């Protein structure tokens, strides 16, 4: 093959370019400390890096969320410890008073002490972290509790906003980060509060702590996919769990055997129903049409669209907030009101009748019966009783009034009610503890995941500087050798030998 001069120089140029390109590449990798700087360097590695980097950012956010839950958890832990101490003090006062060991001076001191306990609990209830009221539930910008001059306490968070918020603590998994005032200071058990100023000092009790659901001809149809009578519930009296089971059965009537159907559950802690659609078809529950059924089950009058294969919806409202007030008219009769409404006509006290005097549970009495035991002090006109969800504040207010009225019987009753309060606090403390433990585990898992992601990113993208240094040296040597050979080659022409 003829080797021409242009051939020689072109070849050198080509080789120079090749080595120079390699040198530039290595220099860039050393400067950026990455072996993959652009997608074309290694498309698969770069794509993996983009995905992992996004994941890493997501994990950082999850880490922040976990820290948020942990911070709130620590605050709740402190609050519940303090609450426990305050309730222990209250219990001691109730025990002392119930034992009859208090003279009037001691009672006055005790009243002041209980008032102080209520104030401290309200202060705890209005604890602020940053600009968030930690017991405000979803309404975290305003104080959730208000102390009234009579030492009653109002819970100012509206129904619907009194639930806790959740945030993501893992991919696709949420955790409750706050505890609403409703959870911390109240319970969903129906409790009977007697006015300590009552003349009556005998036993009074309720037949149940839970309301029943009464399905009748007015509320037993649920419109579904625009069919107004698609679901007809069997009329009767149900507990929450029983009603959930009945709804599930009726919904599944239309589902062919062997196929996935509907699942309906009742959560006693929130008194809400959840309807899950596991069928292969989307379904619309027309609450805007079935208004009475919606009211029964706690749904707003907005239709629920349940997507196929797992779509679900949960009651918007607590179904068990009904409260009753009873006011004695005389020794043998009383009047009552529902949810603070107008009082009814006279109802005779008869054993075995519901609060409205009916012999059967209905949508008014919700299965509540009140029973008075005969004592030496008979019921008197003006004596009042309230049946509502358990409240720590109400219990302490009751204790205060028992002290003011020197009603040792009620103080005695209060001991068990304060124990219930301690149970609530203990329950919440345990819940917070478990939550904190979970967060600790999640933090470790998240850190491990972040670490692993960083390692994979590092292995995928980052450069091995030692290897690059060796490569750079090798290329530099090659480059110098090339330059040397060019200079030598230039001297190897015939021209240099001709004078």
């Amino acid at each position: 093959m003829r080797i021409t001069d242009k051939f020689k120089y072109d070849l050198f140029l080509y080789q120079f370019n090749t080595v120079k390109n390699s040198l530039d590449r290595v220099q860039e990798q050393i400067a950026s400390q990455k072996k993959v700087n652009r997608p074309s360097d290694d498309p698969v590695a770069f794509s993996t890096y983009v995905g992992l980097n996004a994941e890493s950012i997501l994990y950082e956010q999850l880490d922040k969320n976990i820290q948020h839950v942990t911070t709130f958890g620590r605050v709740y832990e402190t609050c519940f410890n303090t609450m426990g101490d305050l309730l222990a003090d209250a219990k001691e006062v109730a025990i002392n008073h119930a034992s009859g060991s208090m003279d009037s001076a001691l009672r006055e001191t005790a009243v002041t002490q209980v008032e102080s306990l209520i104030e401290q609990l309200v202060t705890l209830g209005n604890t602020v972290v940053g600009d968030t009221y930690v017991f405000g539930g979803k309404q975290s910008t305003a104080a959730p509790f208000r102390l009234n001059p009579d030492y009653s306490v109002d819970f100012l968070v509206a129904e619907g906003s009194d639930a806790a918020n959740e945030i993501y603590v893992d991919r696709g998994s949420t955790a409750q980060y706050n505890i609403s005032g409703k959870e911390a200071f109240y319970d969903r058990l129906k409790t009977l509060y007697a006015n300590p100023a009552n003349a009556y000092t005998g036993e009074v009790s309720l037949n149940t702590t839970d309301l029943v659901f009464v399905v009748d001809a007015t509320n037993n149809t649920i419109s579904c996919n625009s069919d107004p009578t698609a679901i007809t519930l069997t009329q009767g009296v149900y507990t929450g769990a029983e009603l959930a089971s009945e709804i599930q059965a009726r919904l599944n009537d239309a589902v062919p055997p062997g196929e996935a159907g509907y699942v309906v559950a009742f959560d006693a802690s929130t008194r809400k129903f959840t309807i899950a659609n596991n069928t292969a078809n989307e379904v619309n529950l027309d609450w805007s049409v079935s208004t009475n059924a919606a009211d029964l089950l706690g749904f707003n009058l907005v239709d629920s669209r349940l997507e196929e294969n797992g779509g679900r919806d949960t009651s918007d409202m607590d179904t068990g907030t009904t409260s009753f007030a009873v006011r004695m008219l005389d020794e043998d009769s009383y009047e009552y009101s529902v949810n603070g409404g107008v009082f009814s006509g006279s109802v005779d006290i008869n054993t075995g009748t519901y609060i409205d005097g009916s012999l059967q549970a209905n949508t008014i009495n919700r299965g509540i019966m009140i029973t008075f035991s005969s004592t030496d002090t008979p019921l008197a006109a003006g004596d009042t009783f309230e049946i509502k969800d358990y409240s720590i504040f109400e219990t302490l207010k009751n204790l205060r009034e028992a002290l003011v009225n020197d009603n040792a019987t009620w103080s005695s009753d209060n001991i068990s009610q304060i124990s219930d309060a301690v149970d609530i606090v203990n329950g919440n403390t345990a819940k917070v503890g478990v939550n904190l433990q979970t967060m600790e585990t999640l933090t470790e898992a998240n850190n491990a995941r972040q670490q692993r992601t960083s390692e994979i990113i590092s292995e995928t993208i980052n450069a091995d500087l030692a290897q690059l240094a060796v490569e750079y040296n090798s290329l530099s040597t090659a480059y110098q050798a090339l330059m040397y050979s060019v200079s030598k080659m230039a001297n190897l022409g015939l021209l240099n030998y001709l004078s």
Partner: protein
Amino acid sequence: MSIASILNIAKSAMFAQQTSIQISSNNIANVNTKGYCRLDPDLREAPLIPTDYGLLGNGVEIAGFVRYFDRFLEASIASRNTNLQEQKTEVTYFERIESILNEDSSKLAENVTEFFNGWQELSADPTNLARRSSLAAQGENLARTIRNLYSELTGLQRELDLQVQEEVDEINGLTASIADLNQKIIELGSSSTTEASDYLNQRAELLKELSGKMNVVSFEDEAGSLTVMTASGRSLVARNRSWELRTQQDPVAGFRNVAWDDGAGNFTDLTNAINSGELKALMDMRDEYLGDGFIKDLNNLAETIVTEVNEHHSVGYGLNGFTDILFFSEPTSGNYASTIALSVEVSTDVRYIAAASSEDDTSGNDNALNIASLIDEDLIIGGESTRFTTYISTMMSEIGDLTQNAQELAAHQKSAMEIMEQQRESLSGVSIDEELTKLMQYQYAYQAAARLITIADEMFQNLLEVAR
């Protein structure tokens, strides 16, 4: 046979060697000239003359020049140049698209993730106005990122369209030049002159350049004229005539198509007939890889972000109790990537951000959680069920693959071209050493011929001495 004939022989020899030295000089002068084909003198013995002793040599003459040229090799180089230029153009533009989309600079996946993280941040404190403002800023940042990417990609697309026009203009210039050279070669009538050789070299270079721009078919007729046609058989050059290509705006896409002008004002669309070369690469990059490729991908991504976020946002409730509010404004043209922006309500007052799912509880965070979860959901993006970050990393992988593939193909084509160029250089290139050797050869021959004159002169002197 006379002494004068010796002088004639010496004269012809000196002339021939001097001309040979001139050819070598020209070869040396053009050692670095692109497309130059070395020449050698075609020395032949001068016609014999009859003497009393029979036919006797009468010196040397130059019959012409030998041009070291392999037409088949040149045709192969021109053909190879079509693929090489196509790949080089693709590499250039793929690298530019890659630099635009590169996650390290665009931060597209990062901003998408940060945006949905913003919803998570808000869910931790839904009534916090600072967090709402931060989310709005993240939304605007994401929108700006997408708009900027779209703007850069469409800018590149417009640049490519202008480049198509420039290529067509250059092709027309090249075909006109080839026709002009055809005319000159025909006029000279012979390719064995240095002048004709120069024209042939120039024409071969122009053909190579033309082949780089689009695939053409060419052949030479007996008169030395080169005929050039498009791959679909449309004439570009025939003897001294050339036909022009024109660009026509596509009424739908709005970009330039390429058409062949028959010279009588009739145009035939050639866009789909151009199946290789730089022009093909430019149109492919413009239409296939940008228009129907990355620009469309980006638009699909923007569309899914806007529609999915808006779908959830519009059923939620803002802190001010408003519902049916969009988070991102809906585009009027169907082009999401160019217009993506926060809705007027959200950009005006962050209380419109619908973190809650119930009107009874506008301080709730359920809707924020629903929107935050979109980052981990399989959604329909461009007809495929995928996640946002997976879709973006697929885009990265795709541009990486295309660029890498084009780089490798270009390197392969370049390497193949190098080999062919080496073969061409081996045949047609100039070697200084070789030329110096020849120079010495011609110089010695010249000196010897000069010596002949001296001898003839001495012979004349001797003869004159005898006569005296």
